[in-house]
Every structure is written in structure tokens, then in C-alpha cells.
């Protein structure tokens, strides 16, 4: 696939904390909400629920797929909205790998399954689905309540 049509979001960051510590922030609700969301219900085992309320009524919902502490975590990800027609959750996939790096951790992040622009134009369901999801993202963009972007939960 050409880079221009690649829609996965990939990131690599170095964290001055051991993988065991970083792992806690991925799977423990009280720690997970320190970096994302207002509330979280996490059941970190294959098939277990992943549910993070990013804003009131704006919930990221999915299922854990691979749980290999403290090395690798894979879960599905989608949006649901309690006041609007629900969007099927679990439509995209997030993979996090933690590699020891001296005293710290190298974290590799990938959010894949986001429809690329060309495929979106070709496939009806992909297009409808993407737009519905984006509508919810758009509501998160509402200037009146975008505290999720300031990193100060």
C-alpha cells in the first residue's frame, strides 16, 4: 500500500518508566483515566470489555484481543453515543507494544482499520460507517467541551 493511502496512525514514544508501570496505565481504570477519559471499565483479557467514557455520553467501546503483560496489548475500538443512534463499536484496532529501553520503555502505538480515502469512496458501508463515526468525533471537537485535548483530565 502506498504511503498516501495508508490510514493507520503510528507513533513511537520513549517513556522514562518501566514497561510494568506503563502497562498499569493501559489496563487499570483509575490509571487509564489519568491520560484519557472521565471513566473507564476495563476487563483486560481476550474478549473482555474495553470501555472509556471520553466525554459525557461519548464512549469509546471495544474488546481486548491480545493481552500479554507487560509487552503487548491489542484491543478493538469504536465510538458509541448514548443520545444518538449507536455506531458499531470495535470497528478499528489499536495495538500497543512495550519494549524495555534501559530504565524506560519504548512504546509503539498503532491505530489501524481507519478506512482510507480511496477505499472509502469505493465501498458504501465503509463510507457510511466512517461518516457516522466522524460525526461523533466532530461533537468531541465542540469548543465548549474539548477538555480531552488539553491533557488535563
Amino acid at each position, binding site marked *: 500500500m502506498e504511503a498516501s493511502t495508508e490510514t493507520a496512525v503510528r507513533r513511537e514514544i520513549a517513556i522514562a518508566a518501566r514497561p510494568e508501570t506503563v502497562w498499569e496505565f493501559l489496563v487499570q481504570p483509575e490509571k487509564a483515566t489519568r491520560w484519557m477519559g472521565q471513566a473507564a471499565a476495563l476487563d483486560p483479557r481476550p474478549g473482555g470489555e474495553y470501555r472509556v467514557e471520553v466525554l459525557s455520553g461519548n464512549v469509546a467501546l471495544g474488546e481486548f484481543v491480545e493481552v500479554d503483560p507487560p509487552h503487548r496489548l491489542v484491543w478493538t475500538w469504536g465510538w458509541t453515543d448514548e443520545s444518538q443512534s449507536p455506531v458499531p463499536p470495535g470497528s478499528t484496532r489499536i495495538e500497543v507494544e512495550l519494549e524495555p529501553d534501559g530504565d524506560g520503555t519504548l512504546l509503539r502505538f498503532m491505530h489501524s482499520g481507519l478506512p482510507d480515502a480511496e477505499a472509502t469512496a469505493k465501498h458504501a458501508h465503509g463510507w457510511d460507517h466512517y461518516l457516522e463515526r466522524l460525526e461523533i468525533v466532530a461533537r468531541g*471537537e465542540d469548543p465548549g467541551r474539548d477538555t480531552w485535548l488539553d491533557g488535563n483530565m
Partner: protein
Amino acid sequence: MEAALKAIAAPHRRQILSLVRDEELSAGEIAAHFDVTRPAVSQHLGVLKEAGLVDERRNGTRRLYRVRPEGLQPVREFLEQFWDERLDALKREAEIEERKKRDGSEH
């Protein structure tokens, strides 16, 4: 980017995008699919065009519309920004926690 998100936030505009996904249609043909007035459809098309989500092409006296796939590129950039902010916060919080643990173990 914000224009694209606002453009797709309206159900009618999402329906229009679905209609012109696979084929070029005129405003009249689009209006035939809805219980909305032709001027309303034209207004929606204007918003979609402004947001870069549809292309307009003249064919004789007709104006035809179809989806412009690359219009969604800014949305991807939004997601990248979202994750950059979140991962920065994760790094910050995990490092604070790690310092707490290390200070704790020294005593």
C-alpha cells in the same frame, strides 16, 4: 478540518455524500431522493463543496456532483493530533508514577 466535520454532522449532508459516492448526480437528481426542497439541497451541496468533500463539474448546462475522497485527509490529521495529545499525557503520567515508585523504594 472543522469545516469537514461540521459538514458531515448534518444527516442530510451525510445522505447526499452517500448518494454521490459512486456516481455523479445533479442537484435535481439528489433532491429527488429527499423530502427537502431543491434550494436546501443546493445549500447542503455548497457546504460540502466548501469543506472539500464534493467536487462540482459542469457538463453543458448541468452541474454534477461527486465525492472528493481526499477531502477526508484532514480528519486523519485530527486523529493523529488526538493520539499525540493522549500519548503525551500517558508518558507524563507514567513517568510521574515511576518517580513515585522509585522514591518509595529508596526509603
